[in-house]
């Protein structure tokens, strides 16, 4: 069953707290992504990972870092969360086959609120 999972689905944190969002996929995809979705701004790429320990900044990496120690897992970390990081975060994965034409498979999202 091709699936991307995200944990937790909902999270409320206070400003200055650390946040860990986790993503898993069962398709052995090499490439994984973290996006945030905000009304009127669409999906913005935070980080992309091409495989284990091969991560690259996306369009809005400031305030975020990532970790990928296993191909099937990709974590997004917010050190000292800020209120403007309140958003819905989506993880996605894709195969390296047909790299620029490959479908991205998305997880269900994590709704993060930073108070």
């Amino acid at each position, binding site marked *: 069953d091709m699936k991307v999972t995200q944990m937790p689905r909902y999270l409320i944190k206070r400003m200055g707290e650390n946040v860990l969002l986790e993503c898993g996929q069962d398709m052995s995809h090499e490439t994984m992504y973290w996006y945030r979705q905000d009304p009127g701004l669409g*999906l913005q790429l935070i980080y*992309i990972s091409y495989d284990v320990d091969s991560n690259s900044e996306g369009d809005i990496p400031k305030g975020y870092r990532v970790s990928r120690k296993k191909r099937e897992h990709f974590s997004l970390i917010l050190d000292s969360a800020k209120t403007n990081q309140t958003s819905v975060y*989506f993880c996605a994965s*894709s195969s390296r086959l047909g790299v620029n*034409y490959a479908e*991205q*498979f*998305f997880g269900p999202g994590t709704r993060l609120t930073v108070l």
Partner: protein
Amino acid sequence: GDSVTQTEGLVTLTEGLPVMLNCTYQTIYSNPFLFWYVHYLNESPRLLLKSSTDNKRTEHQGFHATLHKSSSSFHLQKSSAQLSDSALYYCALSVEGSNAKLTFGKGTKLSVKS
């Protein structure tokens, strides 16, 4: 850099009327890959259709789009809107130098009413 422009904001339609969501793109590359992703409420975004062939209609789940390189467009169309089509639609672009990254438009929210 590359960019995608979509019909802005909210499109409200009555059930049964045709759907057309606009998407235009800008890139210096001559062989773009265009995608439409759909995001239904409380579900994951998913691929609706994609194309890299100029002037060829591609169809899926009643929707269709044609990549026109001459006008840098990839509009999404459907002949008759259904209530279940209400969702957020994203147009996205990839090119040879993208290295697996997509450039997304800001999304168009389609609301279909009875």
